[in-house]
């Protein structure tokens, strides 16, 4: 019984982490209609930045949360630069844009290998969250509960942003009908930069938050990208609810799969995606078929 409860709690934590990663991926996909193949790399480089700042590799030890925010801002700027300088060169050519993001992902991966080397870097859990929560027979790390809380806060913040602000309304208009949004005077191309930066920042933030759980190592990008892809195919692109539901479903399937069928965990993960593709190509909550 404890085993199952623990597995469930771990699944929710992993789902929360996936949500932080996939929410940006989904928004970018929804608005720009391209799967951003650098998203795993942004997650990884964010995690490396966080480990560098929080681990005192630059001389000063930053507070974990400050390090996470700094990393998010840095990577958001990097994302904005990618969008402004490269993707902007290829308007209306989604295929070429995807290939550019693929190329950048290789460069980022190699850059990380060059700077931080091939050994995994462990990220220390912030001291205020070290410890365990006891609930009857269940012992669960405090940090993992905090991750669930952070994911929930980010989800609410994103919902407020998308549902209650003018910017959010503009983004939703861009997702639903980019041409019409342009016609009514929304500068959709400016939205592209904003959303790309936002998604990149969120991915980097997720990378730092995930650091104490996953640690940082070369290949983390290729480990996370397919997960984000599956979440978005499952949940539907450009939909916040879709990202939440998709992340939780994938979190559960992945953790249960790893515990019960370790050799086939990766395979089991993709089964729901295939089912969705066959039965509901736009995803569970999606607004368009990619």
């Amino acid at each position: 019984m404890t085993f199952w409860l623990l597995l469930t709690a771990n699944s929710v934590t992993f789902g929360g982490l996936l949500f932080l990663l996939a929410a940006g991926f989904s928004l970018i996909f929804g608005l720009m209609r391209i799967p951003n193949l650098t998203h795993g790399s942004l997650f990884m480089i964010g995690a490396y930045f966080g480990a560098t700042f929080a681990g005192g590799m630059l001389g000063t030890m930053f507070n974990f949360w400050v390090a996470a925010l700094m990393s998010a801002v840095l990577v958001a700027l990097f994302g904005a630069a990618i969008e402004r300088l490269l993707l902007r060169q290829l308007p209306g050519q989604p295929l070429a844009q995807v290939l550019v993001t693929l190329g950048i992902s290789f460069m980022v991966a190699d850059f990380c290998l060059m700077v931080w080397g091939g050994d995994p870097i462990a990220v220390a859990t912030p001291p205020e969250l070290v410890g365990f929560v006891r609930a009857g027979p269940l012992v669960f790390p405090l940090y993992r509960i905090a991750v669930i809380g952070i994911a929930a806060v980010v989800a609410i913040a994103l919902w407020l942003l998308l549902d209650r602000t003018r910017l959010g309304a503009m983004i939703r208009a861009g997702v639903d009908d980019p041409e019409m949004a342009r016609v009514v005077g929304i500068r959709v191309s400016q939205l592209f930069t904003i959303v790309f930066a936002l998604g990149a920042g969120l991915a980097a933030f997720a990378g730092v938050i995930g650091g104490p759980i996953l640690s940082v190592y070369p290949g983390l990008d290729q480990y996370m990208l397919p997960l984000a892809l599956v979440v978005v195919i499952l949940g539907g692109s450009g939909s916040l609810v879709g990202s939440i539901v998709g992340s939780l479903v994938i979190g559960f399937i992945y953790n249960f799969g790893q515990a019960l069928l370790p050799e086939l965990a990766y395979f089991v993960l993709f089964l729901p995606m295939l089912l969705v593709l066959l039965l509901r190509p736009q995803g569970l909550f999606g607004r368009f078929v990619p």
Partner: protein
Amino acid sequence: MSARIIAYAITLVALIAVPYWISGDYYINVASQILFYAIFALGLNILVGYAGLVSLGHAGLLGITAYAAGYTLQAGFGHTTAILVALVLGVAAMAIYAVLSLRATGIGFIMITLALGEIIWGLAYRWISITGGDNGINLHGRPEPFGISLDSPSAFYYATLVVFLVALAAVAVFVRSPLGAALMGTRDQPRRMNALGYHVWAIRFWACLLSGLLTAISAVLFVYYTQFISPQALDLTASAEVLLMVISGGAGTLLGPIVGACLVVVVKSVVSGYIERWNMLLGAIFVAIVILMPEGLVPGTMRLWRLAWRKAERRSGKAEAKP
């Protein structure tokens, strides 16, 4: 026309003479690599160039074929059986790929093939009881067609060359065939083709199978060349490398994927001897080609050549008109 035939003949002679004018086993091996990667790229080009379907999961197909060959050989079967099993499984895997991914085109097709490739990578990596995980599967020995041993680099090169020429001829015939023309029709005007009564899905499906067959053939050569197969051969980087071959050379041309394979293999095996950062360079070439020369090296050079030719012609025309 005769100039073209002479050019073909010279190229053929040069290809046959490679082991004589290139010294050193290492470079003959590089030439073999170029040839089997060119077959792989020709196979992917059928989808990317002629069908307009960009696949990011072709390394998974290569992996299935290579693992099938390795596993069958390990189980104690002969080379003929192993090759047949590998080819059949490779094409069957492509058929499954096609059924799943042809539900979409464009970005959707990329995403589904990417996911399928990652599934196969995950299986190869995790399903240790079958694939050996990270340790991979070792092969022992190469087949001996007609009693000729392929153990020496130049013998293997000639075997690869024969297969390559057959594959190239097959693709050339396919592209000029009615099916090839119909395939390009489905790339440019799928709805119109549908209205004309063509079965767009079926045409794409057959193209997928041909692409899968070429991939499987190159996979067999690959696995006999390296004598080893591990998950690294089928990760996303491997799929991206082949795609880079097709796109850098020029998608939708016969020569393009071959030039691309040449470029990538040479850069990879020669340059990586000097600098460690192969992936950085791969990414940079990718970005540069997509932004600066999206049509690829072969059509791009031809366009520049024609431009220069026309300019020169105009100039000489003026020069003649003056006196």
